[in-house]
């Protein structure tokens, strides 16, 4: 057996990196704090840009991890306690008192979804028909996309950039995936309820990646989704439990109000809760501007942490789409391989 690596986080990035490393013959401990692999992917229904079922991808990845059990040992329900530097490599102590002697640590702890309650004026947690994108995704997964009182939604609005590009919540960055997710979910609503009027309230539509623009075009042309350039200002509830929203149609320069049956807040990504603690334990740097881990640089050392033998993959170094996360994980594995064979 070659060298040993501990991976913190059993989401897509952790799993993909584990598979890449296992493929090269390394021993991998995949440390997952919950009792299941998959991270946020496990809670998603379909994946942009081509509506692939998230479950299929997850099953394939978990299947591969299981197949590689000679190399990958998954440790569930544990978190990292501390790391000590040894003569050769690192000693990792887990919360279940297991001690691992490893040669490198890969942090793939991912992201947390923005807590929409923090935008008080959007009424999340107060009005039943205000949901987050994750809530809606769960409804899609459960195949029960209805309002709180069981009605079929006639009008649905999606609010982009909730908790992103917002100095008031100290998230000045773009979360990258919310625009395209909003477009995806808007189309899915129209697929379910073709008669519904669907509105997307956006500031900028960041359709940067492959097939994204086509999705946007289809949302407009095929599904007739309304795109309103304006940020939601406030939300209130009408007497019949609908949601009254106010925004400015900035392309017309006129304020507008609209009552919808369902309001979906596209919550962005934020550094996961464990970031600060991990940073302290592993001697990592956190970016003061976005609170995600900093890498050595953004080019050739994009997976290397400032501390020796510690690597970073996935959305713990800033918002990433799933394809980007998986690529980043493979690239992290390559970085670790180079580090260990140097």
């Amino acid at each position, binding site marked *: 057996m070659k060298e040993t690596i501990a991976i913190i986080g059993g989401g897509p990035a952790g799993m993909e990196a584990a598979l890449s490393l296992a493929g090269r013959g390394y021993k991998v401990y995949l440390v997952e704090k919950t009792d299941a692999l998959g991270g946020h992917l496990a809670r998603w229904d379909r994946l942009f840009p081509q509506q692939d079922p998230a479950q299929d991808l997850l099953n394939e990845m978990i299947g591969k991890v299981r197949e590689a059990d000679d190399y990958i040992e998954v440790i569930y329900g544990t978190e990292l306690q501390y790391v000590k530097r040894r003569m050769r490599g690192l000693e990792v102590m887990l919360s279940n008192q297991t001690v691992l002697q490893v040669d490198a640590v890969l942090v793939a702890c991912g992201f947390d979804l923005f807590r929409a309650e923090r935008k008080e004026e959007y009424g999340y947690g107060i009005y039943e028909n205000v949901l987050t994108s994750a809530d809606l995704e769960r409804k899609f997964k459960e195949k029960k996309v209805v309002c709180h009182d069981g009605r079929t939604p006639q009008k649905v609005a999606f609010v982009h950039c909730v908790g992103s590009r917002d100095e008031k919540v100290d998230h000045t960055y773009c979360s990258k995936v919310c625009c395209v997710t909003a477009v995806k979910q808007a189309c899915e609503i129209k697929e379910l309820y073709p008669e519904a*009027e669907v509105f997307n309230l956006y500031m900028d*539509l960041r359709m940067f990646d492959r097939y994204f623009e086509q999705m*946007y*075009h289809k949302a*407009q*042309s095929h599904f*007739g989704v*309304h*795109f309103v*350039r304006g940020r939601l200002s406030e939300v209130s509830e009408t007497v019949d439990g609908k949601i009254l929203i*106010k925004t400015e*149609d900035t*392309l*017309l320069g*006129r*304020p*507008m*109000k*609209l*009552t919808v049956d369902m309001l979906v807040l596209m919550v962005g990504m934020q550094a996961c809760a464990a970031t600060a603690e991990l940073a302290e334990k592993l001697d990592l740097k956190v970016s003061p501007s976005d609170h995600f881990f900093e890498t050595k640089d953004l080019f050739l050392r994009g997976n290397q942490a400032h501390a020796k033998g510690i690597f970073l993959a996935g959305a713990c170094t800033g918002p990433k789409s799933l394809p980007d996360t998986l690529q980043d994980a493979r690239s992290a594995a390559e970085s670790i391989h180079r580090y260990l064979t140097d």
Partner: protein
Amino acid sequence: MKDFGFGLKKSGVMDLDGIDWTLFREIAAEEPSFMNCFYCGTCTATCSAGKYTGFNLRRLQLLVKRGQWEEVAQRIPECMLCGKCQWVCPKGVNTRHIVMLINKKLHARKIC
């Protein structure tokens, strides 16, 4: 009714709950490219009429989608149908047809 020398002011807010969605859907059905617009404003910038007036096709299309027909009815008669906008549109919107359809709907609904 009394006159106190002041009274209610008309709200500038567009109330999308009170608009007639069918009109705009009709136009979209007759000219599907109506839905393609992403409001880049190229049409407005090249407009022959826009050189002399405030004619703004991007805005008018959006006003139709928001059901604000009064402003549309005021402005649409300024179009000369010259078709420059159609040429420069990056989304292949049949702008001339849309202007004609808007006229048609305005007339059919006796808005103008």
